[in-house]
């Protein structure tokens, strides 16, 4: 009985179960939903969410109410910068990635400095940063969609590369492996869990808590910027609010995956499953003809439900 309950509240089991249920539901609602090529298409969308969620995972695991709400703005910035640098030229892809990643990494570092040096709550700091970046984007681009994806980038995201899988999926798997190596096989990874679990104890074992936390926000910005590049590869061109839709889902994916918002707990594999489950949910809701706001509502409800569930599981008597 106890075992059953603890298995059912294991986030990884729960996420996997939801994925299966959602696939079945989708197939029931609209036959063909779970067909091979459809699944690949859904995985591509999941991969985009999964990339943002990688940065979000790091920030949340790092603790002290860590959360990055500026990922949406950073995705938009990354997309707009990359689009304009590339301007449809394959030869400029590398430079575009560099510019987009560099700019958003910096923005993330500023978030991190605000949180660690000025002790601004992460929620406030990253929300403020969202306003600043979005404002700047609108001023610069005057709100007109701009920039063009290079054909090679679009092929990387949308066309099969190996075994019928697009390059983006290979990239995502690679990111998954890298995240595992970072968190489980480097000193930095151990330090991230330590500062997320008990900051004071981390300081007393000699960890540079502020530097590490600043870096985590930087990495979150970087991941968001790179996601922006992928997004423009997915859609072809960029507009200034293209990243907004990823903010809430990136947090939910992390929570579904079992990463505690209190910090110091969980891993990226869970967040990957979370990204897939959430993408499937979105897709099922779209099949039900639910529009953007309806989906936001459901997302919010899912987030609250999960918090309730895991919050309770933690307090259940041993």
């Amino acid at each position, binding site marked *: 009985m106890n075992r059953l309950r603890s298995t059912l509240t294991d986030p990884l089991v729960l996420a996997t179960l939801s994925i299966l249920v959602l696939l079945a539901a989708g197939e029931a609602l609209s036959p063909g939903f779970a067909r091979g090529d459809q699944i690949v298409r859904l995985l591509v969308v999941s991969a985009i969410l999964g990339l943002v969620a990688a940065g979000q995972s790091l920030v949340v695991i790092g603790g002290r109410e860590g959360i990055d709400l500026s990922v949406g703005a950073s995705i938009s910035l990354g997309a707009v910068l990359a689009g304009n640098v590339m301007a449809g030229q394959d030869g400029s892809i590398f430079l575009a990635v560099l510019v987009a990643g560099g700019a958003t990494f910096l923005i993330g570092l500023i978030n991190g400095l605000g949180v660690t040096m000025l002790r601004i709550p992460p929620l406030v700091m990253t929300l403020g940063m969202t306003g600043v970046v979005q404002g700047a984007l609108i001023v610069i681009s005057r709100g007109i969609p701009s920039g063009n994806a290079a054909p090679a980038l679009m092929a990387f995201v949308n066309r099969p590369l190996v075994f019928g899988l697009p390059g983006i999926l290979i990239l995502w798997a690679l990111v998954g492996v890298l995240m595992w190596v970072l968190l489980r096989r480097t000193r930095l990874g151990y330090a991230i869990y330590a500062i997320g679990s008990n900051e004071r104890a981390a*300081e007393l074992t000699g960890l540079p808590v502020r530097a590490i936390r600043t870096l985590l926000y930087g990495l979150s910005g970087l991941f968001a910027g790179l996601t922006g590049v992928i997004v423009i590869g997915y859609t072809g061109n960029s507009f200034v609010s293209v990243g907004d839709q990823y903010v809430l889902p990136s947090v939910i994916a992390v929570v579904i995956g079992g990463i505690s918002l209190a910090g110091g707990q969980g891993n990226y594999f869970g967040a990957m499953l979370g990204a897939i489950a959430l993408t499937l949910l979105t897709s099922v809701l779209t099949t039900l003809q639910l529009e953007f706001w309806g989906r936001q509502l459901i997302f919010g409800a899912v987030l609250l439900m999960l918090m309730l569930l895991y919050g309770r599981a933690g307090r259940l008597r041993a």
Partner: protein
Amino acid sequence: MTLLLKAESITKRYGAVVALSDGGLELEQGEIHALLGANGCGKSTLCKIIAGTVAKNSGTLSILGRAVEIGGPREAEALGVALFYQELSLVPQLSVADNIFLGREQRSGAGFLDARALRRDTEQLIARFAEVAGAGFSADALVSDLSPDQRQIVEILKVLARKPRIIIFDEATAALDRNQVALFFAILRELKAEGVSSIFITHRMDEVFEITDRITVMRNGATVARFVTAETDRQAVVHAMVGDVTALAERPAARPRSDKPARLVLESVGNKRVQQVSLSLRPGEIVGLGGLQGQGQSSLLQGLFGAAPFTSGTIRLDGEQVRISRPSHAIGKGIAYVSGDRGRDAAFHGRSIFENIAAASFSKERPAMVWPGRLRERFTKAAATLSTKYAGLSAPIGSLSGGNQQKIFIARWLATQPSVLLLDDPTKGIDLGAKADFFALARRLADEGAAILFYSSEDAELLSLCDRILVFNSGAVAGELEGEALTAYNLTNAAYGRAA
């Protein structure tokens, strides 16, 4: 005498770990009952079952002869049971008074007037403790600003404020000094006179014989012996606890003072809580920091470790002047700091034992990559040095008993092979046997050339381990005891500022 509480054949398993195989306890009305046993023998688990925070697998509980099922903390509270938690449960961001009244005020039943009387009683208690609690202890003080002993006092008050008829004190005196314990005992005696029964867990045998009426001893999850305190002696009880008698080793014959040049020299250092402290520590020396609780002993150690850096004075290590403004500086120079306040200063809650041990070694050795497989053997050895009882390195730290957690945090620092070891009440919660092992280990480290500064809230520990003792008063060194002068009597006198 009436039998108030009876626990019989209680069992509790955590997965493959058997925490309790046959726990039993009989508590009479108006008695103070010691519950003793080595680290990890199941004392806390038994108490949590009685207090409803852990569910038993089998066994029976009865109160005044009637079988009861205690389904949760609320139900236990309704039956008049209150538990002082070994791992403290205070909210740091709230004041002392708010913590004490947390969750009490809106409770139905207790009427408005009751609440007011309660508050008045508690304020009186706070005032009583204020005398022995040291600077900064008041009803409005923030718990996060308090020292470990002060927080322990708040936890005691929190339990008392419930007006229970059965109180379980799980190592409530672990961080308290002599005066604080004396006041606590006075209150226990008053409660006893009112008919309240207490279960008292401690690893300090002197306290057992001073205050308790009867004794229950546990070993490996089972209750193995019961004594009437007045009719037994220390040896019999310790024998029941650990099998063979391991008392704290006597102080070894005074070791010749080494004539090596000093490893560590402090010249009139100061921070918020210490002023103008100078001392010199040779390799192989174990120097105690004595005096009443909170006279700057911990602050000195934390200053030296860079956790509360010195703002004045100089530090010399092996003759060279060094700046230590954060712990990583200290660690890089071979300094280690073991805190007794494990929940706040040491535990990576929710993380594995492996990670909890590794933290300090990683900071010292700075490997870029971590290969857990290759480190496993080394850390298993580190954990085993103090005969820690644990299921495996990947078990979460929270699955260990309080004393066994503390052994892990000591092991964390021993694994860095420090040349200067700062011990800040490090034995908090560890049992007699482990303490003896730890002291032997500290002496061996000293013999191998380490320099050790040792603060303990227990005078007996200082006297049995140290070569000399610096007695602190109000943040300054008020006296020094050495050689023949190292006696309990002199230590007490010096603590109160009287000439030794």
